[in-house]
């Protein structure tokens, strides 16, 4: 009996491991790729960079200006590989037809009777009895072993040259207010829906619950029209940061209110009554009692709404101009997918930059994130 249980437990652990591997590999591949040399990235799969691999390269030696005279020979010396690259030469050739013709340290002789030798570390010596007369040197075809090597070059390029850095700042300028504004106004709204008595409260609550599932698409066209009219009327740009904040506030309002109300409802009624008897106004109660008690709930909702705004594409596309000063990360990535679809070093690095903030929040505040999701779904 014991043995049977442990067997099924091993099987289920293996199955879980299988799922975990499938789930992690795509992100892992992206991360590794973003750290690879961009030339290697386009000619070999990212998984090859984890182990030592064989690669073929072409190198052209410098011409006559580099020659020196030594021991009765004219020599051109140099290094095939960059300093500290860790590459090891395996074989080389001097024509494109036989790229593996010579072993390391063998002497290769060109048609003009000049000779070349290369050692394992890629130091070559090209010598000839006669002086070199050509401006360009000859080509060497090399096969070398490449140890895993990673670089931050792609990040430098993407952040400063491709405009991802700017888009990152823009996204922050969109996401932060778009999270804080609904949090502020919805906390008052949820408070009044829970603890104040007024005409039409139940109807309002029903409207909130209905609004929870209304798709964003229902609002796009009328709101874009309002923005355009507003812009034309006051002579300001129709698409702007405040416009996006309010749009995000509107679309996040129902869920934020709903989650907060569910939380507030769970607070003990006696506490409010006692405060009221002591002569506290609703605002006093809100500031002194509700806010301190709601910090965990605020944290969960903040994370949910912030991630939603950070990861959003549609709202940013419709309500912002696609110019460098306003474009958000997701829209920028989409643009790069179209224009630089073959430049995987830019795409993978850009995507990873866009994921840094969500991943940081995810790992640092996972508890609140999960709590928010669970609270939101159990009822919604």
């Amino acid at each position, binding site marked *: 009996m014991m043995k049977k249980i442990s067997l*099924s437990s091993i099987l289920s652990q293996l199955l*879980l*491991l299988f*799922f*975990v591997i499938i*789930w992690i590999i*795509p*992100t892992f*591949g992206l991360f590794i790729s973003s750290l690879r040399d961009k030339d290697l990235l386009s*000619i*070999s*799969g*990212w998984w090859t960079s984890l182990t030592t691999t064989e690669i073929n390269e072409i190198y052209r030696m410098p011409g006559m200006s580099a020659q020196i005279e030594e021991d009765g020979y004219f020599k051109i010396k140099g290094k095939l590989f960059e300093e500290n690259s860790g590459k090891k030469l395996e074989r080389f050739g001097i024509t494109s037809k036989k790229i593996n013709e010579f072993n390391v340290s063998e002497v290769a002789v060109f048609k003009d009777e000049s000779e070349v030798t290369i050692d394992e570390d890629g130091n070559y010596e090209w010598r000839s009895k006669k002086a070199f007369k050509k401006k360009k040197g000859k080509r060497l075809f090399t096969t070398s072993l490449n140890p895993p090597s990673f670089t931050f070059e792609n990040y430098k390029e993407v952040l400063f040259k491709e405009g991802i850095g700017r888009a990152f700042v823009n996204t922050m*300028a969109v996401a932060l207010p778009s999270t804080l504004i609904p949090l502020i*106004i*919805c906390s*008052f*709204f949820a408070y009044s829906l829970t603890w*104040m008595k007024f005409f039409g409260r139940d109807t309002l*609550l*029903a*409207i*909130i*619950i*209905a*609004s929870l*599932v*209304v*798709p964003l698409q*229902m609002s*796009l*066209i009328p*709101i*874009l*029209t309002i923005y355009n009219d507003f812009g034309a009327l006051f002579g300001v740009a129709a698409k702007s*940061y405040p416009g996006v*904040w*309010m749009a995000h*506030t*509107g679309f996040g*309002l129902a869920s934020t*209110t709903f989650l907060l109300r569910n939380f507030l409802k769970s607070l003990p009624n006696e506490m409010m009554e006692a405060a009221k008897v002591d002569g506290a*106004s*609703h605002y006093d109660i809100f500031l002194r009692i509700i806010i301190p008690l709601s910090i965990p709930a605020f944290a969960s909702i903040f994370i949910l709404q912030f991630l939603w705004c950070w990861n959003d*594409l*549609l709202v940013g*596309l419709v309500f912002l101009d696609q110019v460098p000063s306003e474009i958000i990360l*997701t829209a920028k990535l989409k643009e790069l*997918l179209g224009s630089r679809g073959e430049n995987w070093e830019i*795409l*993978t690095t850009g*995507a990873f930059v*866009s*994921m840094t903030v969500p*991943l940081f929040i*995810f790992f640092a505040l*996972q508890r609140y994130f999960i709590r928010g*999701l669970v609270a939101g*779904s*159990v009822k919604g």
Partner: protein
Amino acid sequence: MFIVFLGILFFISYFHISNLVLDVYGRRSFKRYHFENSIRVIVFIAPAFIVLFIFILYPVFETVRLSFYDKFGREFVGLYNYKWAIGDPEFRRSILNNFVWLLVVPTLSTFFGLVIAKLADNIWWGSIAKSIIFMPMAISFVGAGVIWKFIYEYRGPGDTQIGLLNAIIVSFGYEPQAWITIPFWNNFFLMAIMIWIQTGLALVIFSAALRSIPKEMLEAARIDGASELKIFFSIIIPYLEQTILVIWTLITIIVLRIFDIIFAMTNGEWQTGVLANLMYDWMFRGGGDSGRGSVLAIVIMIGVIPILAWNLYKHRQEQKI
């Protein structure tokens, strides 16, 4: 950056100043106390209600109205836009694709979520496993699109494949494929991305729900000699029926308005378009057609109406208790 602080400050000061004024006003006499209270309700509700009205309530009615008007929203055209939609091959294709998405994604995400939650339950490295599978939830759909486009990357038959999927296929001796351009099947490659993301959502909710199953019930079944598989199907699934339904509807709502993944991966080409993409297209195509765009939005809305009604019904029931 300055404007960011200004924007947030505006809302804080609105609440603070208006409430301080009311506090001072209300303390003067008892009569004013009641008046003050009703004003305060308005102060508390007004900003949220105005936003709700402008961004949700008014647009819903306006979109319905616009769907009966021409492309500029000026002339009444009756059912013309709806007739156009029914006859439009792109629309039919989108409806079909949306339908397949709705059939496949919520079901598989819920299924994987439940299975993984059960597998990771009571294993020492279970929480790490859950973290990893949950992680895609934090990533944007566009970011996920880039990640998976890299997996589906296609190179000609002779070249080195840098996309993982093609590299695996080639190593088994098959021809590499341009996955996202194969009509109909490419939908499933896009859906895989969504399942990859949404399984995490299902997983965390199921994990919480699994803990609520009474231990005694499971123990009793084990003593009676039921296998783990039997327990899973005969006890756990029926017990979590409600949760399964909730997660399934939750993912259904998300899938119904799916836009980003398709927009980033194929832009609706190779017959992968869905309603939300077609709608976005019509918002700007030919200078924008608000009539056709609205019809498409309404079709998406119709999809959520049963869920909306069900939620309201449940809410009503709770209020009665």
